[in-house]
């Protein structure tokens, strides 16, 4: 399907700049040879409130791909999640997400 050309003359380029503080931070969980798969599912459900299906999918991403983004949230929240994941022994880091 072709796009319809914009014939309006009052269209302004988007100038809204999102402050960098609004860029989400990704919480990344990394694969680990020790943590049990069922334990990782348990932790995901407990910390993020995932249902069993989602928690399993995220765990399998970690297992198969080496990592999974389990949350994209504001910085303080991401720090909280990463700290909690560490308390449960999971390898987790945080990184700036896409705008």
């Amino acid at each position, binding site marked *: 399907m072709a796009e319809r050309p914009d014939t309006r003359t009052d269209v302004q380029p988007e100038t809204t700049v999102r402050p960098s503080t609004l860029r989400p931070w990704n919480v990344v969980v990394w694969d680990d040879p020790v943590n*049990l798969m069922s334990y990782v599912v348990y932790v995901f459900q407990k910390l993020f409130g995932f249902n069993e299906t989602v928690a399993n999918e995220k765990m399998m991403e970690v297992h198969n791909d080496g990592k999974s983004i389990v949350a994209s949230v504001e910085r303080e929240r991401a*720090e909280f999640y990463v700290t909690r994941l*560490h308390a449960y*022994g999971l390898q987790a880091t*945080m990184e700036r997400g896409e705008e």
Partner: protein
Amino acid sequence: MTRLRYEGKDAKTGEDRWTLHFVELEANILASLPEQLEALLTHPESNQRVVDRLFPASYEDPEEEALNRKLLGDSLMAERKEMITAVNEQLEGATKTDDGTELHLDRASVDLWLRFMNDVRLVIATDLGIRENIGDEDVVDPANPDAPKYALLEYLGGVEAILVEAVSRAG
């Protein structure tokens, strides 16, 4: 052999309750673990690589991570030590039976034991330099001087699996 028994819901609180039974040998090993973990945390320089595994970096950028550590202070270490204190309290509240020891658990204490046992497993595995996933096919030669460590790693993993399954089944 370690057994977990579901005791139903507490009449007052409505909380799920379980009894975890250890035979004497298992109970003795289990009782020795909090002290060992605490000694490691009190003297991290004794095996810094292992301690670092319990406190991984949150940021890949060293400057961000340094600031993060500064903000967190010793809160992470304090939390770990509180966990060990709580585990010791659980052990003090255990019931001796004819053939072992019984721990009385609710959901919060199952969570506590899971975190504790997982920490011990991480310590052992890091100390052993395990970098690949451990499978059932990885049988360790009994003559290997590290065989007892591998056996403890496997045993604690088995208990963890029982506990996770129990809380998952309870919903």
